């Protein structure tokens, strides 16, 4: 793990990259990273996230700035701009059931080829997907998801990069921290080694590539 300036961290991300971005309706999204993506006008991005939040919040800022080519999300209902760009054809929106999305990301980070879930069977979500029977029950094969970068929000990071999340700001963050080639973390608090009990570390340091230094 290396510490890095916010600006340099975002400079690493090329236009056209695939990003996983933590957060749930903006809660637990690394806002400084999002703001810097907008400032540097990184475009043509694919974002994998739970949702597109709302205008002015989290991933909603990327939508408003028209930096996204494609989103893979479970929900866009609180962001009318996402719906507008989708209908206008400028934004590809792949909707995935939320639990399936979480497991597909986890599978990507845990070295599994995909997941077998009954969610979505008999609905439009099953279109184009392989059905596999296990013990007489049908499941959809939903392939693993990975990204070039994960933008992760943590409540606490120690100097080594061990991460803890807080309350409902945890959500997709620990899953995404496992599922991207390069993991960039913005932490609310950076603490000395040993301040966090080993049992309370939720993402072990070795998976973190960069920790944003405090400005």
């Amino acid at each position, binding site marked *: 793990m290396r510490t890095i300036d916010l600006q340099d961290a975002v400079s690493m991300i090329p236009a056209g990259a695939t990003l996983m971005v933590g957060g*749930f*309706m*903006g*809660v*637990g999204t690394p806002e400084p990273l999002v703001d810097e993506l907008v400032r540097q006008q990184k475009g043509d991005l694919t974002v994998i996230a*739970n*949702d597109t*939040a*709302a205008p002015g*919040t989290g991933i909603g800022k990327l939508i408003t700035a028209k930096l996204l080519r494609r989103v893979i*999300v*479970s*929900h*866009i*209902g*609180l962001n009318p701009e996402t*719906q507008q760009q*989708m209908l206008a054809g400028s934004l590809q*929106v792949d*909707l995935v*059931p*939320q*639990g*399936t*999305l*979480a*497991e597909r*990301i*986890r599978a990507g980070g845990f070295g599994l080829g995909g997941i077998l*879930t*009954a*969610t*979505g*069977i*008999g*609905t*439009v*979500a099953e279109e184009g997907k392989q059905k596999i029977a296990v013990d007489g029950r049908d499941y959809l094969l939903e392939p693993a998801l990975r990204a070039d970068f994960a933008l992760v929000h943590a*409540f606490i990071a120690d100097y080594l990069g061990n991460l803890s*999340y*807080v*309350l*409902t*700001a*945890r*959500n*997709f*963050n*620990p*899953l995404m921290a496992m599922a991207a080639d390069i993991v960039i973390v913005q932490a609310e608090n950076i603490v000395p080694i040993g301040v966090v009990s080993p049992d309370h570390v*939720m993402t072990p340091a070795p998976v973190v590539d960069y920790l944003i230094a405090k400005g």
Partner: protein
Amino acid sequence: MDAQSLIAKRIAQELRNGMLVNLGIGVPTLVANFVPKNTHVFFQSENGLIGTGPVPEPGMALPWLTDAGGKPVTALPGASTFDSAMSFGLIRGGHLDLTVLGGLQVDQHGRLANWMVPGKMVPGMGGAMDLVAGAKRVIVAMHHTAKGRSKIVRECSLPLTSDRPVDLVVTELAVIGFPDGRATLLETQNGVTVEEVVAATEAELTISPELSKSITSMAASGAVETPSTGEAI
């Protein structure tokens, strides 16, 4: 009591001690206001919380503690938090005893459509497909009709949320179940007649034997008119 509270209050009677319950947004949320005395249930919020408490006092909101809509909530003593994979493991793995969801349409076999109106409203399914596929019991809380048209239909014209039938639909008029895969009128809300429910319902509706019997006995005592028989209408 307004229609929404009527629905929520009736659904709250389905709560049992120790249940893990997930409430959707809208009318389902109101169910939390009617938890019976001496009944302790765990409310799950799919963004990663069991033990969701009421809205915080002014000045006490924490940006890291919200409901699935991103609105500040509190956590009750004994709450637990977890990531999204665990949250849906609880849902998909059969640990969730009950989910209460809003509905756009329910067909006469109990199949729910509640996540999109093609060409109009495409919010995404969020957790709805997982909840309906995974919860031990699914109750739909919705108005019986919309713009004068029945929301309990012969066949859903809107995209399904799951092919797994829901267990109960509670409206301001009636309580409808799906034993043997057939929409069955189990109860009418207070002051509503079976005829009124049937008239407001597009789906074929079986009247449950228990309801027929109770109506018949009420009719015998002069309380209501003689209803139709317990056959499909």
